[in-house]
């Protein structure tokens, strides 16, 4: 008898992804936290999958939108923060708009992205995460975002260039950049906002520093 119980708990007997998760009262804790911060109606979800069917990029996600809501209910926090889903989501708001129970799916995914950005978990879609961060950095330096400056800053980030070489996209992207320069769409010189100092201050404060 004892052996069966032991077998039941041996993760080697299970296929990957089927490990039993012991969550205790954490489930409620995480659910309440997300519910409180997003006002997202999380508990109303009955898994009809309308969100996933409406999502234009669910094909590229490892945890589908309806599963995200289920994971939140179960408190599977780490799986969510480690997922590609939270970075691939385009915030196009199809899911939220078509949910019959007014679950704010896009807002919940966006909030998970916020939590992930402030955690020690490495983002699964590094380039997408680094791009957002670069955007905010350029913004806080000049108050406005000039596309040429943004792309220059993005490519100067560690590992971005090497990842572009690895994926074989570098040549195509450089050619696109050149074409845009020729068309006059990328402008190497940019205007600034005079209030950049205040914006920079707000940005630093939003990261928890005392100014």
């Amino acid at each position, binding site marked *: 008898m004892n052996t069966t119980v032991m077998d039941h708990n041996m993760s080697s007997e299970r296929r990957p992804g089927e490990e039993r998760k012991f969550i205790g009262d954490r489930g409620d804790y995480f659910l309440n936290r997300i519910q409180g911060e997003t006002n997202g109606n999380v508990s109303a979800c009955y898994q009809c999958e309308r969100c996933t069917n409406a999502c234009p990029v669910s094909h590229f996600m490892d945890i589908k939108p309806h599963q995200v809501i289920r994971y939140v209910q179960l408190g599977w926090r780490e799986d969510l923060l480690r997922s590609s889903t939270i970075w691939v989501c385009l915030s196009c708001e199809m899911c939220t708009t078509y949910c019959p129970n007014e679950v704010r799916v896009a807002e919940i995914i*966006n909030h998970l992205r916020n939590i992930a950005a402030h955690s020690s978990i490495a983002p699964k879609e590094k380039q997408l995460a680094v791009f957002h*961060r670069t955007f905010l950095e350029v913004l806080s330096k000049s108050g406005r975002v000039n596309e040429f400056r943004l792309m220059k800053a993005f490519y100067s980030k560690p590992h971005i260039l090497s990842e572009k070489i690895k994926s074989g996209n570098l040549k195509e992207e450089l050619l696109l950049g050149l074409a845009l320069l020729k068309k006059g769409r990328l402008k190497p010189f940019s205007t600034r906002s005079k209030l950049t100092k205040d*914006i920079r201050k707000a940005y630093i404060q939003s990261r928890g520093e005392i100014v």
Partner: protein
Amino acid sequence: MKLSFYPGCSLEGMAADYARSIDAVFKALDIDLVEIDDWSCCGATAAHSLSEAMSVILPARNLSAAEQMGLDIVAPCANCFNRLRFSQQMIQKKVLDIPWPVTGDLKIHDMTRFLAQPAMIKQIKKRVLKPLNGLKLVCYYGCQMVRPPRITGYTDYENPQTLDRIADAVGARVIDWSYKATCCGASIGIGRREIGNSLTKRLLDKARQAGAEAVVVSCPLCQSNLDMIQKDGLEQPVPVFYFTELIRLCFSERRDPKWFKMHFADPVPLLSKINAI
């Protein structure tokens, strides 16, 4: 009439041609657009992705400046409009500390809905010198202008009509299609090229299947995505117009092909085919 104008960052760079056409159209309509004093970026997708506080604070800076001017705001960029509206709602709820004096009382218009009001459509029709008869096009709205409805205020978010009404007013033949508000991928192509391309290609295919020869948009990022993918030339290019470019064409006696020099899919052959240029 006087309005404050929030151009947004794209209109200084990738969408400089959009800015020029807006300028021409509003001058012709005798509406005074006053640029918001020392405007700054709305934070776009990056701000709400990484810091929900910044996504309220950044647009609030511009709302505050516009309030000091005392003029309702019009925004040409879909995402700017969406972020300004979102920030306004959060300011009214008073859930965050904003470092700038702001009440959130001004009206924020997206440019298409402003120009699609019955009175404005009348004004546009009155000034059309030569309608764009024979131009078959589909109108593409994208996400941020229409969704989520509780922020944008669109009630016809499944089948929006603002661009349709304007394109109709300038004489074009507007074709109905099912992809009006399907996402173009926004900035995802920068990190995941294949995702961005798959979404944009599908939109162009569907536009062609519907029988359109051109697409009309109002969002700078939608325009860039749909146009840039045609960089190396397609067998059957689909020019992607800003809606103000079409209005400008109809308003002008002398039409300059140079207005379209920033486009990859060159609209000039199509326009000369229908004797519009």
